[in-house]
C-alpha cells in the first residue's frame, strides 16, 4: 500500500512557553523549539504499522522551507521510506485551502492508496485533510482512532465521537483520513537514527514542478488571514482567592457547601 502522510513542523507546546512578543502582534518566536505536529507523528507511526503488515511504502511530505526538512528526516529515521519537501516562495502565506491545493497537485503526481494527516495542529484549523479529500474527490474520515485493512480496496476505520464511543465505518481506497492522537504508541526515534539520515537527499518540489498556479495559492490568494495574536483582556474571569492556603481552603469549603456540594 502506498501511503502519504502530510506533516507539519510546529512549535512544541510542551517545551515552549507561548507568550506574546513585545510588539504584541505575534507570539515570541525567538527561543521556540519545534518538532513535528504530534497527531502527524501518530499518523506516520500508523502508516508504518500498516505497511509492516501489508507491504508498501510510506512517504512524508511537508509544505514549507529548509527548516522544515528536520521533521522529514526525523520521520525517515522512524522508518518512513521517503521525505519530500514542497517549497516555493509563491507558497508563502497560503491559507488552509492553499496548502490543500498544493498538496493536491503533489498527490496527483504520484499514486497513493492512502493519505493521512494529523487531525489538527496547535496553530491550525483541522481543515487540510478534509479539504484535500474534497479536492481529490476521495472519501474522507476525521478523528480516526483505529484502522484495519480489509483488502486492497477498503479499510475499516473507527472515528472518535462523543462519550468516548467509536463510530465504525467502511471506507473505499484511495481515501484521506485525519488521525487522532492515541491511535497507537509511536516508536522512539533516537538521536542516532536522526544522525543516520542527516545526509539523505530530500527532493524538493516547487510550483512549476507540481504544476500549481501561483495565483491560486500564497498570501494573495488566501481568503482567510490571521491578523495578529493577542491575549484577551481578562474580562470577568474567575474571582481569584488571594489568601493563605488555609484561608483559601476554608473559602472553597464554604462555597462548595453554599452551592449544594456538601450533602
Amino acid at each position: 500500500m502506498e501511503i502519504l502522510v502530510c506533516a507539519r513542523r510546529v512549535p512544541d507546546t510542551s517545551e515552549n512557553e507561548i507568550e506574546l512578543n513585545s510588539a504584541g502582534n505575534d507570539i515570541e518566536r525567538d527561543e521556540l523549539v519545534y518538532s513535528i505536529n504530534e497527531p502527524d507523528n501518530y499518523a506516520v507511526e500508523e502508516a508504518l504499522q500498516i505497511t509492516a503488515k501489508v507491504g508498501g511504502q510510506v512517504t512524508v511530505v511537508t509544505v514549507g522551507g529548509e527548516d522544515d526538512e528536520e521533521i522529514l528526516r526525523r520521520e525517515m529515521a522512524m522508518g518512513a521510506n521517503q521525505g519530500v519537501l514542497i517549497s516555493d516562495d509563491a507558497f508563502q502565506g497560503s491559507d488552509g485551502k492553499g496548502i490543500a491545493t498544493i498538496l493536491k497537485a503533489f498527490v496527483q503526481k504520484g499514486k497513493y492508496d492512502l493519505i493521512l494527516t494529523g487531525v489538527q495542529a496547535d496553530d491550525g484549523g483541522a481543515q487540510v485533510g478534509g479539504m484535500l479529500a474534497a479536492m481529490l474527490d476521495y472519501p474522507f474520515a476525521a478523528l480516526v482512532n483505529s484502522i484495519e485493512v480489509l483488502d486492497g480496496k477498503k479499510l475499516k476505520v473507527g472515528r472518535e465521537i462523543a462519550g468516548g464511543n467509536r463510530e465504525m465505518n467502511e471506507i473505499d481506497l484511495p481515501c484521506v483520513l485525519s488521525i487522532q492522537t492515541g491511535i497507537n504508541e509511536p516508536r522512539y526515534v533516537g538521536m542516532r537514527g536522526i544522525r543516520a539520515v542527516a545526509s539523505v537527499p530530500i527532493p524538493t518540489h516547487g510550483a512549476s514542478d507540481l504544476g500549481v498556479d501561483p495565483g491560486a495559492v500564497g498570501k494573495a490568494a488566501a481568503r482567510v488571514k490571521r491578523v495578529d495574536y493577542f491575549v484577551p483582556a481578562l474580562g470577568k474571569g474567575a474571582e481569584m482567592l488571594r489568601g493563605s492556603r488555609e484561608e483559601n481552603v476554608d473559602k472553597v469549603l464554604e462555597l462548595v457547601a453554599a452551592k449544594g456540594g456538601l450533602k
Partner: protein
Amino acid sequence: MLEGIHSDARLTSWLVQGRALFLFLHVLGVACFAYIVSRRLVPLIRAERDPRFDRPLARLGKVFKFWLGQWKHPRYKTAGTVHILIFAGFILLAMRAFTVLIVGVSPNFVTPGLSGEAGHLYEVATDYAATVVFLCMVFAIVRRAVFKPARYEVPAKFGKAHKADAIFLLSLIAILMVADSLFEAARAAAQAQPGHVAFAAALSLPWLLKVSLVSLPLPTLGALCFAGYLVHEIAFYFLLCYRPFGIQFHVETSLFNVYFSKLERGKLKPVKWGVSDDHLDRVKSFGVKTFEDFTWKHMLDFYSCADCGRCSDNCPANAVGRPLSPRFISIKARDYAFQHYPMFGRSKNGTPLIGSIYSDDEIWSCTTCGACEEECPLLVEYIDKIVDLRRGLVDEGLVPQSLQKPLKALNSRGNPYGKMEKKKADWTNAKDFQQICPVKTLDKKNGADTLYFVDSITSFDDRMQSIGRATATILDHVGENFGILGTVEKDSGHDVRRFGEETLFMALRDHNTDVIKASGVTRIVTADPHAYNALKHDYKDVPPVEHISQVIAREVKSGKIEFRPVEDGTAVYTYHDPCYLGRHNQVYDDPRDVLDAIPGLKRVEMTRSRDRSFCCGGGGLMLFYEPKEEQRIGVKRVQMAAEAGANVIVTACPFCMVNIEDAIKVAGFEGKITAIDLTELVDQQIARESTVVTKEAAEIPQESVAGR
C-alpha cells in the same frame, strides 16, 4: 593411607582386576567432559569481544580475595558458612580425588609432595573434609526440601524451578563422599585385621565406616573396596560431565569468572569494545538484541550463576513486585544458551531476546542501584547487561511513551522537563537568597577555581532548588571561589546513558565537557550523586569532581565549619546512603562524619545501610517511568527508617529526596517522619557569627516536606 596402598598387595590385587574398566572410564569421562566444554565454548567464541586480559596481577588478587577467600559469602551467615566449608572441602579433596583416580590404573602412584608426614596430615585433613562436605550436603538438601527458604523460590512468571536438579546434584556429591569413604574404609578395615594398625581420622566418615566394616571377612571387604572405588570413579565423572548442564558449572567457571571480572567499578561498558566514539556511526546495531550480542564474559556470567538468589533478594525492583529479578536475567539466558547451543546438532541463533526470554518492562524496571552486583559471590555483572539491553531497545525504537517525553525534552532543551534554558539559573534569584549569597555564573569575565555543577533537577524543581541554595551557601561559607555554568549547563546525561540512549548522552557529555573546559575551573563540586558519578566515570578530560558531603566533611575536620547543637530533642536521624554516592562510589563515612559532628544529633543506622543500602526507587529518567509494581520502592525504604526508630531521614541526593518525600506521603507517615538533605541540614546547623540566616535555613525542616 595413600602411601600405604602400594605396599598393600591385597589392595592392589583387589583393584587390578578392574584396571581396564577404570582406564576406560577415565578416557570416557575425560573425553566427554572435553567435548561438553568445547560445545559450551561455542557461543563464547562467536560472542562480542571483551578485553579482560590486562593487569594479571590485579586479577589474581581478586581471585585470591573473592574465589579463594570467599569474600562475599559471609554476607549471608548460614548459607555463607556452609558454602565456605564445602568450598574448603572441595579444594582439599581435589588432590585426593585426583590421586585415587590414578591409583586404580597405576597402583604405585604417589602424589608428589604428599609422602611421609605431609601425607599423613593430608590424610587427616581429607578424612574430615569428606565428612564435613557430606554433612553440608545433607544440610543443604534438608534446607531445600524441608525448610524451603523464600529466597530460593521461583515465582511462576520467572520460569521453572531447578530445585529437583539441585537436590539431585547435592545427593550425587554426598554419594561421592560416601563412595570415597567406603573405598578407604574397606581398605582400612582390611588392614585393621590381623595385627595391623590402619589409620582413619577419628570420628570421620571413613572412620565410622571402618569401624562398622571391620568384622567383615576379607573377600567382602575386597568387594566393598572395589565397589567404593568404582562408584567413586563413576560419580566423579558423572558429576564432572553433568556440572556443565546446570548451576554446578560454577565449580569450574567460578575461577575464570572472578579472574575476568571487572576491575574498575563505576565504568560502563562502551557500546562496542574497540570502537571509539567517533567511529560509532559505523556500527550497524547498538546494544544487545540477540544472545550473540552479549560479550563472551557476559555469557560466562550466565554459565557461572549459581542461582543462589542473593541478588534478587537485595534487588529493590524485585522487592516491590516489578517484573525484574536479576537472578533470572542470568538463569534464563543460561537456559537459552543451553537450548540454542545444544550438545549435538546445529546452534540456533539470532532470536530477539526481548519478547522471548525477557520482557521490556523487566529491563526498564532496573534502577541500576548495583545491589545485585554487590552481593554476588561470583562477581556476576548486571548493570552492563541491562544497559546493553536498553541500548538495543532504544535502537529499535521500543521506548515506553513515558520515557519518550523526557528524552525528547533532553534533546531539544537539555533537561528532561522541557524547561527553557534561560531559566536554568533562576534558582539563584530567589528573593532573600540573592542578597545573602550571590552566585556567579562563569563566563569570559567571571572565572573561578571551582565549578558547582548543579544539574537539571536541582536547577528546575521548586523543591530541589533549596538544595542548590544550601550548597551554594555552604561553599560560600567555607570561602570557596566557585561559580556555576548557568544557562549553558545541560543535563549531565548520567541516566540518559543508563537508559540506553548512548548517542544523546554523548551529545550532552561533549557539550558539557566543552563548556567545563572553557570555564577554566580546576575542580568540580556537585550535590547530585548522579552528576557526580557521571563526571567521575562517564566523562573524560574534566577536572576532578567531589561530592559536597566530602567537602563538608573535610571542612568540619579543618574547623571551617562548626555546628550549633540540634534544637529538637525528639528528633532521631538516620542517614540513607544514595546508591551513586555510597555503593557505586563508596562514600559512606563522610556524610556520617558530618552528622556525627553536629552536637546533640541522635543518629541510628538502618539495617540496610552502606553497601547494603536499599535504593530509594531510582533517579533521573526513572522518575518518569511508570513501572508495574505492587508498591513504591521508596515506601519500603521509609518503613525501614521507621523500623530503625528514626523520624528524620537525611539523604544526600535530590532524587532520593523526591522519592522519600513522596513515599512519606503515600505511606501515611506525613507529620511523623520528615526528610532533609544533608546540605539543608548543614546550612541550618552551621554556627554563624552574624544572626542573619538564609530563608532556607530558617524554614527547614518544615518546608522540606511542603512547597513542592
